[in-house]
């Protein structure tokens, strides 16, 4: 059924991963960074699905579920933290949070 070669799928995952990566690097808004990380995680999940589909195993999909769980947990904590930071810094600029350096 799957006529799609694995490299194509992995390529798509890779491209999505890179887009997320670019976004993390160029964005300063912490929420955007969080979103971008989600894109990357999603791309990783996609890669698992592709690989799982290639080997016709459920393992890839199961990994995706775990990734999903992790993403949810991560986002919830992340958002809570972002709220805190917004309270304190009155900004979402990640560059502003640079009191610690050197």
């Amino acid at each position, binding site marked *: 059924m799957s006529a799609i070669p694995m490299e194509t799928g992995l390529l798509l995952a890779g491209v999505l991963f890179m887009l997320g990566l670019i976004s993390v690097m160029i964005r300063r808004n912490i929420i955007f960074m969080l979103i971008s990380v989600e894109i990357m995680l999603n*791309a990783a999940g996609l890669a698992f699905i592709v*690989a799982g589909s290639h080997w016709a195993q459920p393992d890839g999909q199961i990994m995706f579920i775990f990734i999903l769980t992790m993403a949810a947990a991560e986002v919830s904590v992340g958002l809570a933290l972002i709220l805190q930071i917004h309270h304190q810094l009155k900004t979402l600029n990640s560059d502003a949070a640079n009191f610690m350096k050197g």
Partner: protein
Amino acid sequence: MTLTDFQHLMPLLILTFAVLVSMLVIAVGRNHKIMYVITAVSFLAAFASLFELRDVGRYTIEPLLVVDGFGVFYIGMILLTALLISMLSYAYFEQREERKEEYYILLLLATIGACVLVISTHFASLFLGLEILSVSLYALIAYLRTRERSDEAGIKYLILAAFSSAFLLFGMALVYASTGTMEFAGIATAIANFTELPLLLLTGFGLMIVGIGFKLSVVPFHMWAPDVYEGAPAPVTAFIATVSKGGVLGVLIRFFMEVDGFRYPTLVLIFTIVAIASMLAGNLLALLQRNVKRILAYSSIAHLGYLLVAFLTGNQMGVEAVTFYLVAYFITTVGAFGVVAMLSDKERDAEQLEDYRALLWRRPWTAAVFTVMLLSLAGIPLTAGFVGKFYILAAGVNTQLWLLVVMLALNSVIGLFYYIRIVAVMFQQADAEVEMEPRGRLRPSIYLASVGTLTILTLLLVYIGVYPTGLLQVIEGMLAVATP
């Protein structure tokens, strides 16, 4: 899942149970002391349950986990460290206005994550263990919400950890894609057929190294470490420096020993570069740093570099050396951060070098403990750190990793400088202006646990330094089981 499976996971079950009980207790009514006792007791109980597993041999819980001597030893190490950290935490959090109870829950959860890591034989359990650890740490790092630095540290760790997790996952996916299995043993058999690693697999390994490297805070994935160390509460910092890294290192060793990654020059080269860079960068960064927590962060980067030297030997002796060094490093780091925690006051942690000026004259005992810890980090005899460093050097010389060994020696000297610098500051003559006691301290009895813990740590450190045979026997005994 059978009953025996559960028996073999007893420590984890105890900890999970403790988490649940804790939440119930909080629901009934908040009490710091009760939470503290529950945590400590559960760590102890979990540790005690390990004695049942001592001679377990190799018990596999397909496909995710395996309980063997190596795992049991590492779990034991993690549990004891966590116990010590919780002991040190009580006084630290007692003087803070935050709600203290969740801290213990998160600590237990993070410990569970680390324990899962060291017994995992599957990417799924590896990933889950890592994430349990990480997610708990996000909250732990930012635990003291009144400090803006905590938040900053928290968000930095969160974004960067998630970012690196993505790398790890993508790498795992590639490995999975190329081998068709996520079990370590399966991967091992899969790549045993290859004479040379296929590029896809190599890429996967490379990306995984990014994720693992981040957790280990080795160069060039180290930049978060000083900021997070500085921002996090002192006990949490101790936890990151020890349990978190120990867990990851444990799984790294297990994975590499299983697939025998040392056969591949590419991987060895990568790790060699990383090790050298970590040693150099860590020590150089710490050189003139004036923030003690940051110094310890940089020094931990360097120490991970040292550990990688032993790791790179890729033989039984190297694993033993890593393990031994980790024990020494755990004791020392917990001790050092324990001192930091002890000296911290309500408003901020005692992290500036100035805070330690003339400490010897103000609080001789604390200063002595800290000195011993620093000397151990520097690898001076009579401390466990010396034996550890010796072991690593021996392993390195045995495998003739001359470059790494010489770099290690060179870096030890640079390292000496900043450790001794702290000692020198502590030993300076007291100025009249230095306040004799930090502000707003609690009654002394609260520090009992901290003082006791530090004493135990110091004695342990010196004991291992003077008579390492006992520990060596245990390590050899336990690890011999691990690698048949």
